[in-house]
């Protein structure tokens, strides 16, 4: 990531401190339960139960009998070495891959029959690791798209520009305007997302998450491709995100200290199975966790996290300590 990228990210991320919470109300207006959905959308943070989940690719069991319960309103961190099945687990929850066995339940309701679009309507919102978004849509259109998903207007009434279609479009534009304002994206409004830096794209992604109003938020490595300094800024940002959207967050992340700092529960996966889960303090001391992932190095635990000023000289290390040290064990 070049310095140029870093500056643009600064502009966008750091201005939203504080302003984000001010706008806490807007996520609720206009958000109605989708009338066509089979299951009506609930309110407040959702609970996720994963039971004996198995996902295979050919002969490889990417996720192997995983059982996890995620309490409403918590931030849960999912860590583990590459290829341990973290992203696949997220894919299964958002419906992109079909599990072979086991079940997924949102607030006790089985999700098996729901395709990704329907899960999104239930409030399962997902961000992607590559954060590619839609390269040839402008930032404004990308955000409008989130509104489209929730408030879909038929082609016919759009074509004829019937009153309600115009009104719906105006309402969407208003909601988008507010998010663009609070995320400091005004100067990127008409830029194609494909032309933005990774950092700015992440901010656009976060903005669309806020618009989508998730009940269960699945974040796949939100700090990938972002400089260390900005990764630190992500901790308050993610907390705010949870407060504003009122969602449960399941976070896949390689930045171990960030996870320990932010999450109330940490789950460690290895080769498709859960090695250990529990509160950060418990997991931190557990020898299995260290052996599985942390490379048996205390320094690795302390790279990110401004609160932990006792980290010493480890600050110069890369943003992905777990990544680089996993092979040392």
């Amino acid at each position, binding site marked *: 990531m070049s310095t140029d990228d870093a500056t643009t990210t600064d502009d966008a991320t750091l201005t939203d401190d504080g302003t984000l919470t001010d706008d806490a109300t807007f996520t609720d207006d206009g958000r109605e339960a989708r009338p066509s959905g089979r299951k009506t959308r609930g309110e407040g943070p959702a609970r996720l139960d994963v039971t004996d989940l198995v996902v295979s690719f050919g002969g490889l069991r990417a996720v192997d009998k995983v059982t996890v319960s995620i309490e409403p309103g918590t931030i849960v961190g999912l860590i583990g070495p590459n290829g341990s099945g973290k992203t696949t687990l997220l894919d299964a929850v958002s419906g992109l891959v079909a599990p072979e066995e086991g079940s997924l339940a949102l607030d006790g309701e089985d999700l098996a029959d729901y395709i990704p679009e329907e899960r999104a309507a239930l409030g399962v919102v997902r961000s992607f690791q590559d954060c590619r978004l*839609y390269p040839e849509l*402008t930032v404004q259109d*990308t955000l409008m798209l989130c509104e*489209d998903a929730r408030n879909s207007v038929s082609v016919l009434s759009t074509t004829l520009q019937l009153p309600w279609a115009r009104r719906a479009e105006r309402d969407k534009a208003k909601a988008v305007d507010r998010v663009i304002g609070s995320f400091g994206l005004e100067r990127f409004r008409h830029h194609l997302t494909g032309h933005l830096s990774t950092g700015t794209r992440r901010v656009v992604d976060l903005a669309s998450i806020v618009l989508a109003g998730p009940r269960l938020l699945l974040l796949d490595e939100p700090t990938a491709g972002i400089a260390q300094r900005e990764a630190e800024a992500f901790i308050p940002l993610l907390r705010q995100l949870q407060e504003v959207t009122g969602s449960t967050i399941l976070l896949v992340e390689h930045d171990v200290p960030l996870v320990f700092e932010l999450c109330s529960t940490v789950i460690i996966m290895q080769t498709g199975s859960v090695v250990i889960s529990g509160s950060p303090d418990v997991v931190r001391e557990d020898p299995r966790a260290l052996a599985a992932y942390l490379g048996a190095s205390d320094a690795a635990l302390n790279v990110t996290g401004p609160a932990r000023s006792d980290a010493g000289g480890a600050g110069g290390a890369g943003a992905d300590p777990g990544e680089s040290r996993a092979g040392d064990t």
Partner: protein
Amino acid sequence: MIAVSIPSSVVIEGAILGLNYGLLATGLVLIYRTNRVINFAQGQLGVVAAVFLVKLYYDYGINYWAALAAALLLAAAVGALSELLLRRLFNRPRVMVMVATIGLSQVLFLFTLFPFIRPKKLFRNFPVPVNWSFHIGTFLFSPGEVVTLIVAPIVALGLAAFIRFSPWGLAMRASAENADSARLSGVWVRRTSTVAWTLAGALSAFTAILASPSSQTSTLTEVLSPGLLLLALLAALLGGMVSLPVAFMAGIGVGIVQDLLLWNITNPSTGSAQVELILFVLLQLALLVRAASLQKSSRTAERTSWMTGTVGFRHTGDVLRKRVGTTGVLGVVVVAALLPLVLDVDRSFLMSQICIYGVIALSLTVLTGWAGQVSLGQFGLVAVGADMAAHLGGGIPLILLLPFAGVATGIVSVLVGLTALRIRGLYLAVSTLGFALFMQTSVLATSCWTLPVVHKTICSGLPDPQSTLISRPTLFGLGLTSERAFAWFSLAVLILSILMVRVWRDRGIARRLISVRDNEVAAGSAGIPVVRTKLMAFALSGFMAGYAGVCLAFATERFSTDTFDPTVSILVVSMVVIGGIDSVPGAVLGALYLEGLPAIFGSSTTVEFLTSGFGLLAFILYLPGGMAEVMHRLGDLATAGVVQLRARRSGGSSPGPEPPPTVGIDPATGKLTEAGAVAELRS
């Protein structure tokens, strides 16, 4: 009725035909393996050489074998040169490269017209080196067919051995799979690609030279006809677009099946239509089964296939810029509305044509430009609309017929689009091309057919496939019989279509289509219904193509199945690409360019191919944004001019003698409008 018999003479005849398909298929696979593109110029590459062979043999009296060697060399050179030309598109979306090969094939066709390649006398027997022939029953196999039976397998085997045992074969596969990695591992990707094209050129020459003796020289261009190409593609697909031997054998199989079908379906009037139907079904099955599984494995090809690389110049939010643009557009509309008053009958008719083609091109902008669904079969949908006009034109008032035909065609389009749920990109292009051919040769060509079980006769095709006559209706009591009236009517249809598409673009439809095209997974997770959105693109596009078909039918008044030749579909794709693939004004400009220029320079295939072939190549190579980009830059220039002018005025300096507003002559480049816009803003 069907009485199955398998005479050996028919099988051998089919096999000879199939050997040609096989060779063509092998060439297609060869290029696909190297460049991940379906080479629409594969047939045409060798035709130049075949024509040259005739020239050398008859006009210069050169020994056959020497002439053959020279022709093969020429073909190899043509192949290599083509690659050098297309090399510039190395990192571009595959679909654009595919369209470029269409342009290439048209340019190659023009080569055959050069005096030093074109033989003096056409309609002569194609030279054949030997005089062997044999009988099976009453069926005589000519020397040309005997040569095919002997030479084609040898060529195919030789090629397979080269690929298998030379290091080039592996290099070709590696560069197709991941060009960047291959380069880093020391494979000369571009040189490999040149070798492949050289081979493909020689192979194509063999195909053309072997296939030609059974026909006359003038019909050589048949080698590039979509029907033949599709059968070769069917064979190539059966080989998974990878295996040369399987593709070759499948080609033979397709030839045999085709001839056996023709032999066994005795009813001569509907026979070929039924064969086409069966081959169409086979093609779709091959696509759905083979291509869908192929796509899963090659993610890279699909990833790159729809990054159109738009320049992103469209949204600036600058008020002045917008005003300049609007003024320019309004100027064009006013000029266009006044044009029929001064144009003669022929030119008025041409204007109607351009307007209707503009609508068809717009329908493709929606489908291909925004939704990323490549369709080479748009004229199949236009044919549906025209067919409905032929059947219902007298009964339903025009104002109702237009939307009715639109909706009906939209439904057909959605059915075509169902394949798009499984296949994408190049394969979808093949599938839709198959649909267009099927519409022409099977549906339209069969006036009436009988449902097999209930014995009910359905008349769905053109009332007279050779020449259907319809008379123009009235609109709100106004007759459209005069060309002038019809030109206004077409212009009105075009303007309404543009307004409609603009609403789609600016009010929420386009962003949904583009999101699904750009990142299907993310769009789905964000709650955009992916399947419904894709089908919506087909429905909208089909709707427009349907009512455009009605207009086209009434404009021409007399049409046949040939009016809806699949090559016209390819012409429409050229319009959209030349215009700027996702641009609304671009589609209209493209139609103006491709329909208008041939009329100015005299309408003939030559001029048509000249404009579309060279136009396609030039725009794809040098101006990927198309004419829309050119127009946009002119608009920027005009805006800058206005800004400068205003600054000078407010600066207090005397306005000075204004330069006379320059009125550009050529409407195709858009110069007229922008100059007009500046002039208007100045006053």
